């Protein structure tokens, strides 16, 4: 069964991988090129402190985009993730201020994330309701539920040990950046080399062929959503522990930023194509652009426009590439 799957998926991806590699290479060049360009304009941009701050402040977006990329590769979408991150941050923070052991407060975010996302995966996979509808519903439930339960009251007085994001490994490497790198590499290897990882591409690329190869589509989708929930939980922990207060509201437009990272990272919105290395690089690029706009005195009005241009250009390029491949 597994051999059939791999053989089936192999022929095409080999060609695809070339293109994908160039997608990631392009992003890497863009990240470095932009840093140099802005550094020429304002050398302070290249200060180690600033580069590290850019990564540190946005690592949670890259971590969430890893899960989002898996969801999109599987041919689905999730627009509830921003609201979920807000809810998970609040759960974790509430436990921490009420005296729960810190490890329990951290684990709760991961477990709750997996449960909520797995539930959505089950509804999408077994009841065959489109992901956009299910996650839109969940978005409303989480958003409304959070404000009802907390009344918008912020969580303050968090215990010092709660602040996971403050940890520096070996005294230099901030934990969020470390987590972003490790999560990206492990997820990329898993998706590339393991049977269950490859199944995500198979299900998203050609559901019918995947079924014929013996891959259970519903099971793969539930697995993808459960994993996505885990990454959302990890992102929520970074998000919640960065500042002294937790806002107890849903971070505005967070899901859009996360989806943007995936899409600009080369994950095809049509499913079946893309890597988490691309989405992490894209998350870094988007964060870098936001900082670069301030450093180059460009009006912040442009940030959303620039993000929009990046999305459109990437999606159009993806569609054109598919047409060319279909024509060839």
């Amino acid at each position, binding site marked *: 069964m597994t051999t059939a799957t791999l053989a089936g998926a192999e022929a095409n991806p080999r060609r695809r991988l070339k293109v994908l590699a160039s997608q990631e290479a*392009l*992003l890497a*060049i*863009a990240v470095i*090129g*932009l840093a140099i*360009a802005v550094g020429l*304009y*304002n050398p*302070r*941009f290249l*200060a180690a*402190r*600033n580069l590290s*701050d850019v990564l540190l*402040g*946005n690592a*949670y977006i890259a971590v969430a985009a890893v899960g989002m990329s898996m969801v999109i590769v599987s041919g689905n979408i999730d627009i509830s993730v921003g609201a979920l991150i807000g809810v998970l941050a609040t759960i974790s923070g509430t436990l921490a201020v009420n005296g729960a052991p810190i490890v329990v407060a951290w684990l709760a975010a991961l477990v709750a994330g997996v449960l909520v996302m797995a539930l959505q995966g089950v509804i999408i996979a077994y009841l065959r309701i489109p992901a956009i509808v299910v996650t839109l519903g969940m978005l409303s439930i989480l958003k409304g539920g959070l*404000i*009802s339960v907390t*009344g*918008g*009251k*912020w969580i*303050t*007085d968090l215990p010092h040990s709660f602040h996971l994001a403050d940890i520096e490994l070996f005294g230099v490497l901030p934990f969020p950046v470390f987590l972003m790198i490790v999560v990206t590499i492990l997820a990329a290897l898993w998706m590339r080399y393991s049977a269950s990882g490859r199944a995500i591409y198979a299900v998203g690329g050609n559901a019918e062929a995947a079924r014929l190869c013996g891959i259970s589509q519903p099971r793969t989708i539930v697995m993808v959503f459960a994993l996505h929930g885990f990454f959302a939980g990890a992102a929520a922990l970074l*998000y919640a522990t*960065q*500042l*002294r*207060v937790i*806002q107890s509201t849903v*971070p*505005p*437009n967070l899901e859009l930023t996360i989806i943007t990272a995936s899409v600009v990272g080369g994950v095809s919105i049509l499913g079946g194509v893309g890597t988490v290395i691309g989405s992490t690089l894209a998350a870094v690029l988007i*964060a870098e*652009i*936001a*900082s*670069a*706009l*301030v*450093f*180059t*005195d*460009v*009006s*912040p*009005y*442009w940030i959303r426009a*620039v993000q929009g*241009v*990046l999305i459109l*250009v*990437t999606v*159009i*390029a993806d569609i054109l590439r598919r047409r060319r491949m279909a024509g060839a």
Partner: protein
Amino acid sequence: MKLGLAFAFLSATLLAGTASAADKRWDGADDLPVNPLACSAGEANAAPAAKPYDGGKPTNATDKASKPITLVDVPKLIGIGYFNATSKGMQEAAKALGNVTVKTDGPTEAKIDEQIKFIDNYITSGVDGILFAANDPVAIAPVLKKALSKGIHVVGYDANSTPDAREWFVNQAEFNGIAKAMIDSMAKEAGEDKSFAIVTSTFTTPNQARWIAEMWAYAQKCHPKLKWLETVEAQEDNNLSFNQATTLINKHGDKLAGLFGMTSVATPASAEAVTKAKLCGKVAVVGLATPNAMKPYVNADCVKSVVLWNPVDLGYAATYVMRAVVDGSLKPGATSVDAGKLGKLNVVNGSEILLGSPFIFTKQNIKDFDF
């Protein structure tokens, strides 16, 4: 190729970069007329054009001058620190006056339809006066007008309704008052000739744009050497505010001596950015914020002034205003009202009572507040 395009786009925006004229208002300010206050407390402020009374009037209200009255207070929502504080102020005022009973009741969520139901029920059960903080200025108007038509006195505080739906509104702070407190604090903490930047929600958010315009006007008038570097947008997003403040710190380095937080989100996030950059004492953070979110920074001596108003005083003033309305000592055309321990409060904008100068939370007093 696609990134090449994005680059071309980005470099085009770079070339188009901003060249600001000297007399141009700071980014994030609106274009409305400004009315900066006098520089020192002793000087008289330019009197704004007097506006005739534009509030409503109850029909056939029973004369209860100097007699015991029963009031109900319907805030936006109950159970949060802020409205617990206004409620506390009302109880203090009721105790000081001796002939007022006031009860706070309202929705547990800031929902206008719920709030209307609460007010409607109290009109039916009968009270002498209603105090309110509106969830929506227009939607609340009909039920308040109904109260007036039944002879019930209506006074608003914190969040206004359309003027004709209530008699008076206790305004917690005028834009120019907040602006003066912000700029004076910055000049004192950062230095008269130092540079600062602003973290706001968006350039078009009405309140923030008004405050920034008044801050600009007041700084031009009273602290002309204070140098504005730039304004950045951070929505109402904690992490984005933190990132933007951090970027400002990294960009301007030693030049940056102060950060203004224009929202209750931006201020603690800016304080966090300054703390993380180990620049407490070097970069002053001044801003609008609620005390609970600022306690860690104020207690750590990283932030010295948090500008807001005192909600306990706000509730206290609203109760005194209601008593004065019932007693007939506050009539249309009056220019001030006596508010017990707060002294005389001025009438502004036709039918509003100004609470006074903003309240500044400091290390000494911040522990007394929980909201």
